[in-house]
């Protein structure tokens, strides 16, 4: 795998091909679990862990799997790792597990993970696949945390509330609150708020991209356009 541009893989995963904001993949957990920054972070970490394990495994077995049966094989691999992660969260982060609930198990059907298995891990070596998983996973996690923080802030005027459930007691310093007297807009916590917030995040990313292209003197490739949801 000489000549693999790891920097590009990471940049694509984190920004240019951000699965949540550009590819619009994995929207089900993105919209459903991001009622707070902590939930978003927990979901993001769980997804990244599954993605890392599944990408590495699928890259390892990519020459043994016949193309006709690859999708069932990938799903079985992903489902196994989701089960592992779910049991681990159930054991060690019980309160967070209660909040995220069914969406941990539903990581199996997260399009992002199957998408990366199909589009990247089945065609590349182990190391690039692992790097890709980390880049994509952290990119999605960033989107999850941002959207969760946005909705939490608008909806109930706090940020990283209950972060100690996930990160331990030291994380109580992260827990911010606007204070008493703040009337949160409940709609931000409700499902419509997720769609509206995601729309604003995508718009923000496109604005940043456009500013960046305008600054570049050299005529570069046009900024990535949002693809159709999978």
């Amino acid at each position, binding site marked *: 795998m000489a000549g693999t541009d790891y920097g590009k893989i990471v940049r694509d995963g984190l920004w240019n091909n951000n699965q949540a904001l550009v590819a619009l993949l994995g929207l089900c957990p993105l919209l459903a679990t991001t009622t707070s920054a902590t939930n978003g972070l927990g979901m993001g970490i769980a997804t990244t862990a599954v993605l890392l394990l599944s990408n590495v495994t699928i890259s390892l077995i990519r020459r043994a799997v016949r193309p006709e049966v690859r999708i069932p094989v990938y799903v079985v691999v992903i489902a196994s790792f989701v089960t592992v992660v779910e049991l681990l969260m159930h054991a060690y982060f019980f309160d967070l597990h209660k909040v995220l609930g069914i969406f941990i198990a539903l990581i199996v059907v997260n399009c992002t993970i199957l998408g990366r298995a199909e589009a990247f891990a089945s065609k590349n070596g182990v190391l690039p696949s692992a790097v890709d998983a980390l880049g994509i996973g952290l990119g999605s996690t960033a989107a999850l945390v941002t959207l969760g923080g946005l909705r939490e802030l608008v909806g109930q005027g706090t940020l990283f509330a209950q972060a100690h459930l996930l990160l331990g007691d030291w994380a109580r310093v992260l827990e911010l609150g606007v204070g008493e007297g703040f009337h949160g807009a*409940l709609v931000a916590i409700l499902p419509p708020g997720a769609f509206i917030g995601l729309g604003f995040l995508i718009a923000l990313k496109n604005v940043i991209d456009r500013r960046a292209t305008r600054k570049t003197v050299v005529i570069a490739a046009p900024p990535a356009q949002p693809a159709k949801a999978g």
Partner: protein
Amino acid sequence: MAFPTLSSPHTARPNETRRVMAEVLLALLPGIAALVWYFGWGVVINIALASAVAVAAEAAVLALRGRPALPAVSDLSTLVTAWLFAVSVPPTLPWWLTLVGIVFAVVVVKHLYGGMGQNPFNPAMAGYVLLLVSYPVQMTAWLPPSVLTEHPLTFSQSLAVIFQGAPPAGLAWDAITQATPLDVMRQKLGLSYTIAEIRQSPLWGDFGGRGWEWVGNWFLLGGVYLLWRRVITWHIPAAMLGALLFAAGVFWLVDPNTHPFPAFHLFTGGTILGAFFIATDPVTACTTPRGQLVYGAAIGLLVYAIRSWGGYPDAVAFSVLLLNLAAPTIDNYTRPRVFGHAGGGQRED
């Protein structure tokens, strides 16, 4: 003697946005006067505040979009949004909620979709629903009508309530606010009272809540004016009110003890305002005559369904928004036959 030559189209008067919107504002005046009569100065303050915020938000977002502000602001459509919003919300609504609702309506619902004529949802109702879902307590605290209250708010007291959130000295919130008749009906029915028992309370008049029931008539007057001026056609109001009466009539005949008589639905809540002013929004409603009948009837049925079995007391805003979403599809299937072609107008491209 000079005979000016007129070319077609021979319309009676120029059909421009500003004229239509001015007619709508004029038609709202009787209803607004009735609201002020029954609910005091808060209505006027809300209208003034909403109008100012709406015009400022419109001008600001047009500046951001690099469009000239004057033509868009002076077509009065923003004012119609602001007035419809202000007559829908409680007269004691805190000022910052009016601000949030109007900015959402103008910036997000109207301009993010492309501005005047492009928005799929009725901006005033979307702003109203955003607030109702987010701040149910403030959005359901209505004043009792003046014929019932012992403490009508003066102008300065209304100002203090709206801008400082302070009830008048010596009075608690519960002394000056009251649930709406639809809300009372819904709660009491939930507690298994019969209609006759509920209506023994002095809150009730001949049809709906005392005082409340006559506000709709003044909006009806404005609606008839709009029909006469041909700003709207009869299809949507007739279909909506007809479907609501039909649904209410069927259930009332089945069991008059637990279902209010049909006229109750006409005389309470935002039924008349919704039928003539909100559902008929030319941008977001259906445009084909048959489509308008379907659209109006579906709104009427949904209003009955949500009022009877939904989670919120009134339903006009929710129903209108849901049918806004369906309007393009309804239009597509109800195209009138094109002259010279057989069958309905199907999309050929």
